[in-house]
């Protein structure tokens, strides 16, 4: 008991680090599995960065579709990140974090389109906002927002 009290700060730090690592890794793997699965499922909703629809002949019905995701880093990633800040270089932990966030935002946008019956999205853009907490050194979180113009051919009711 005395041991725990003597080294409480150290023990807490190691606990948070281990929690961040194991929980973060478990959630990340699970998220990637889900992303790959849903990417297959929504593959028929096509996305393009171009401003113009591939089919310029037919008149199109259009609407704005969007997908938004807010993600937060874990303690382990943040710890490695603050060390990385000292020496520079490729920030591997955040690469997966942001990759997941981008793909998740696009998936949500595709889901939005599919629900409304659209299977083509053009002019897809991604915006990101960093959400910084009130205190300095707070856990970094980001919002990723994917949006685009969904198109479908207008069915003529003659």
């Amino acid at each position, binding site marked *: 008991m*005395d*041991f725990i009290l*003597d*080294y409480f*700060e*150290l023990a807490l*730090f190691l606990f948070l680090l281990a929690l961040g*690592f194991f929980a973060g*890794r478990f959630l990340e793997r699970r998220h990637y599995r889900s992303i*790959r699965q849903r*990417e*297959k499922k929504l*593959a028929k909703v*096509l*996305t*393009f960065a171009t401003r113009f629809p*591939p*089919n310029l002949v037919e008149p199109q019905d259009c609407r704005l579709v969007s997908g938004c995701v807010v993600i937060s880093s874990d*303690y*382990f*990633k*943040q*710890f*490695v990140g*603050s*060390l*990385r*800040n*000292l*020496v520079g270089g*490729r920030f*591997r*932990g955040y*690469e*997966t974090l942001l*990759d997941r966030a981008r*793909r998740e935002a696009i998936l949500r946008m595709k889901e939005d389109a599919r629900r409304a019956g659209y299977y083509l999205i053009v002019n897809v853009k991604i915006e990101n906002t960093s959400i910084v907490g009130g*205190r*300095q*050194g707070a856990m970094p979180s980001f919002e990723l927002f994917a949006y685009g113009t969904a198109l479908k051919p207008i069915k003529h009711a003659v």
Partner: protein
Amino acid sequence: MQFENRAPDEHVNYSIEHPLKEFAWLAGGVFGGLLLITLLAGFFAGELAARLPYRYEQSLAADTASLLVDRATDPRGIAIEQELNRLAARIAAHMPLPEGMQVTLHYQDTPELNAFATLGAHLVIYQGLLARLPDENTLAMVLAHEMAHAQLRHPARSLGRGVAVGIILSALNSGMGRSAAGGALSTTGGISLLKFSRDQERDADAAALATIAALYQHVGGAQDLFRVLASAGAGSEQLRVSMLSTHPLSQERIDAIATLARTRGWPEDGTRTPLPVALRGAQPAN
């Protein structure tokens, strides 16, 4: 026209390398580097401080010692201080104190189990420790140990070292802010100071033992001191991690004393001298 969104290449946008590999490289490099820098800076700052003439330390101590140490004002406290100073003078005769160094003993009537040496060879012993000492030999080990700190200029070294390491850490801290690694890096810097502190304790133990051997012709009582400290440390002592302590573990010190006494040929025990009457007054009434 047929279009298709292909599944993204999983190896372009992020790395599949195990995160612990990056962690090991970064943590090893940054913490190892910082430990090395603080150890080097601490070493040179300490050596530099110890080479400053003693009078500079004295003038610095004149300003600070009066704040650190309350002088005893009651007659009993004064009598105890006089007796302690008499014993210190006898010990000083067997110790190569630097030129101009005058050891001053202070007695604190509070129950802490402690004694310390500070700048200007001001030594402080607490009632809590004095009351637990069985005889003069053990008390002499306490005083000789603290006087050895003064003789080896440990307070000055620690001050120089603290300033050097403190500057490095505060520079780092201002750069890192309150990030997760900031706290851990400060702790690492602190660990290097603890290493110096343990080395000083070992050096002071060795110097004190030589003095005790010259004074009493045996080193009886020296081990008793650490037994007293260990028994009063109550349990936590066994669980203490050596690397994170300011002092070496009591058992290590008892063993080191036995080894040193054997190699130098000092008798491990002999006739013990009882405590002077005035100091017995510090014992609890029961």
